[in-house]
C-alpha cells in the first residue's frame, strides 16, 4: 500500500467509524480543497451515496466561483446540502467592514453553524482540518469534543492510541471529527491529482496570482504564482517556505503588537 493509500484508508476508517457511532451527523463543506477532498473520501466510504447531510456555511462574502462550484457538485453528486446562514445578522449588515473581522467571523460563521447544529440536532460534524495547517491544530484529536459554546479544552483530551476513539463524554454538546488530520497540504494536492478530484478554479493562476487558501473575499489574499495545473501547484509547494495561511489575516500577532504600540502612545 503506498503513502496515499494509507492516508486514504485511515480517513475512510474514521469516517465509517464516526457514522457507526453517530447517526445524527453531518459534514462541513467550505468548498475549499481540503473539505472537497473530505467530501470525495465520504463518497468513497459509502460507495458514492453519502448518507448524511452536507453543511455549507454561507457568509454571503464567498467568491462567486465558490457558489457556482458548490451548486454544480451538489447536483452532480446528489448531495443533501444544507446552506446555513445567520440571516438575522446578514440583514443587519454584518460584514468585515462593520465591527472587527473577529466579530464578523463569529457571527457569520460560528453562530451560523451553532444555529444549524441546534436546528438539526446534530451530534457530530466532520471537518477537513489538517494538523500541519497551524500550530494549534497540531494538538487536535480525530474525535474532538466541544461544549455548547464550542469551547475546546485542548489540555484535557482523550488519548487516541491503537485506533481507539472515545466518542462519549458527559455534558458535551457535539463532537468534531477530523478524518483528514494526518494529511499535509502536499498530501492533499497529491491525492487530488491521483483521484482527479474537482477543485475550485481560484486555486489556479490568473494574471500571475492564485489563492492558496480560500474563504471570504475580503479576508483572502492571493499569492504570486504561475501554477496553472495541479502538477505545477505540487512542484511549487515542494519549494515554498511560506506558510499556507500567510494570506489570511494574522490576528494574534497583530493584537500583541497593537498592545505594545498603544502602551507607548501610538494609535
Amino acid at each position, binding site marked *: 500500500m503506498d503513502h496515499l493509500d494509507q492516508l486514504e484508508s485511515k480517513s475512510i476508517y474514521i469516517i465509517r467509524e464516526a457514522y457507526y457511532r453517530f447517526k445524527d451527523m453531518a459534514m462541513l463543506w467550505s468548498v475549499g480543497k481540503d473539505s472537497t477532498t473530505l467530501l470525495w473520501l465520504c463518497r468513497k466510504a459509502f460507495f458514492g451515496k453519502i448518507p448524511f447531510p452536507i453543511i455549507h456555511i454561507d457568509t454571503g462574502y464567498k467568491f462567486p466561483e465558490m457558489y457556482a462550484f458548490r451548486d454544480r457538485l451538489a447536483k452532480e453528486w446528489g448531495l443533501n446540502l444544507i446552506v446555513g446562514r445567520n440571516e438575522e445578522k446578514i440583514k443587519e449588515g454584518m460584514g*468585515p*467592514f*462593520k*465591527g*472587527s*473581522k473577529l466579530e464578523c467571523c463569529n457571527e457569520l460563521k460560528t453562530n451560523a453553524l451553532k444555529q444549524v447544529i441546534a436546528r438539526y440536532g446534530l451530534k457530530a460534524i466532520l471537518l477537513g482540518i489538517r494538523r500541519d495547517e497551524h500550530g494549534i491544530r497540531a494538538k487536535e484529536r480525530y474525535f474532538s469534543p466541544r461544549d455548547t459554546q464550542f469551547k475546546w479544552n485542548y489540555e484535557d483530551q482523550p488519548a487516541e492510541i491503537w485506533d481507539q476513539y472515545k466518542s462519549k463524554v458527559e455534558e458535551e454538546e457535539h463532537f468534531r471529527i477530523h478524518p483528514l488530520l494526518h494529511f499535509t497540504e502536499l498530501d492533499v494536492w497529491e491525492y487530488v491529482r491521483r483521484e482527479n478530484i474537482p477543485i475550485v478554479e481560484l486555486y489556479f493562476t490568473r494574471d500571475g496570482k492564485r489563492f492558496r487558501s480560500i474563504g471570504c473575499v*475580503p*479576508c483572502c*489574499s492571493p499569492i504570486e504564482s504561475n501554477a496553472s495545473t495541479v502538477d505545477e501547484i505540487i512542484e511549487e509547494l515542494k519549494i515554498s517556505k511560506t506558510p499556507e495561511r500567510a494570506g489570511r*489575516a494574522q490576528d494574534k*500577532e*497583530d493584537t*500583541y*503588537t*497593537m*498592545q*505594545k*504600540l498603544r*502602551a*507607548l*502612545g*501610538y*494609535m
Partner: protein
Amino acid sequence: MEERKALVIGIDGVPFTLVKEYVEKGYMPNLKSILDQGFRLWQMDASLPDISSVSWTTFLTGVNPAEHGIYGFIHLDPRDYSLRFPNSGNVLAPTFFQILGLDPGGKDSSLARKYLPRFKEPRSSIVINVPHTYPAYPMKGVLISGFVALDMARAVYPPVLVSTLKRMNYVIDVDPSKGHRDRDGFLEDLFQALDTRKEAFDLFFQGKWDLFVACITETDRLHHFFFDAALDQDHAYHNDFVDFYRKLDSLIGHLYDVFRSRWGDEGLFMILSDHGFTRLKREVNVNRALEEAGLLKLRKDGERYQRMAPGTKAFALDPCRIHLHMKDRYPLGEVEEGDGESILRDLESIMGDLKDEEGNPVIRSMYRRDEIYQGPFMDDAPHLLCLPVDGYDLKGRVGTDSIFASSVFAGMHNQHDAMLLLPGNKDFSGKPHIGQLAGLLLDYFCGEDH
C-alpha cells in the same frame, strides 16, 4: 584584506541638545573623554516621519521609505481599511550588514547596487536590539531583533543562540504598560534591562566580527514617561533620570574601551540616535481636525479606520501621515486623480492654520510626498507629511472628541534633534541625515572613507 572593524552604538531617542548639556554638566564623563580624543558630536535629522521603525530602517538600509517600504509602525490595508503591522519581512531593501555579508536576501536597492560589486569577501556582523528587525532573518553573523519582537524564538538568528539568551534572562524589551501603573517598578526594569544589554554585548563582543551594532532602546522608554525630569532639578525623578544617563555613559565608555583595547585606534566608532526627544505639551488629534474641516467622515460603528464613511477625502495615520482617500486605491475612496491638488492645498491650509487653545501654531513644516520620497514604493507614501512644533505630539487616533488633549506621556519624538558622534575627520556638507550613515559605513569597509 585589510582588517577593518566598526562599532556602532545606537541609543534610541537620545537628543543632541540633552547629550550636549549633560556632557557640559559633567553627567557623562566617558562621552566627554571620547569627544576629547578627537570625536565630534553632531545634531542630526531623523527620517520622515521620526518614528523608530522608519528611522532605524532608514539607518540600516541607507535608502528612503519609498525604497525600503516602511513608513510607520502601522500600515493601512487599502483593501479593507484594516491595520497591518509591518515587520522585518516588509523591509524591501537590504541592510548594510546584508550588503557586507554579500547576501542581500533577494532584496535590491540603489545602495546595494552601488556597494555590492565593491566587496569581494563577505564580512560578518553582530546586530543586537535594533528596532524593526523582527523576525530575525538569516545573515552572516548574529541578529537579535529589537522592538517590536514578539517571540524570542523568532527574534534570534542563528536560532541556536535562543537558549543562551534565555539562560542569561535577556529581555527583548521592557513592558511599557508598566510605565502607566508602576513608575518606580518601570524605572527599575529599565536599569535592569541596561544590565542585560551589557551582558549580551560583552558575550558577543568576544566573538569574530567585522561590524558590531549595539542598540539601547531603554532611553526611548525612559523619555516617553520621564522626559519632563531631564532638566528639572526639582522633579521627583530628576536624579533617577540623570542616574540612568550616568549608567548609559558608563556602558558607552566600557564598549569604547573594549573596542579600542581590541582593535587599537584603527576601528571606526560611531554613536547615533534615531530621533530626538522633547517635552510634550499637548496631543493633537489630526483626524479630528480633518473631521471638523469636513474632509473625514466617520460612521458610529466599526473600529478605527473601518469607521470611515463615503465622503471621506483624507485621513491621517500616526504620527501625521495624511493620505488622500483615492478612488483607485480604497473601496470607498472618492478622490479622483485630478482633484488631488486642490484637496492637498486645502489640507496645507488647514494644517498650517492649526493653533492650540492659546493661539500658538502647531505645525512646523509640511512636505508633499514627491518632495521627500523617491522610489518604487511611492504608492504607500502619505500625500502630505506634517512635522509639529516641539511640544505638540501629532496623533492618528480615529473618533476623538476634540483636536487637543492632554497626555499621560512626558516626552515626544522630534525629527531635528537626533544625535551623531563620529571621528572628527568625518565631515558633512550640511546637517547630517540618518540616511547617510549606511553609505558612510560601507565606504569605510571598502576603504573609500578618505
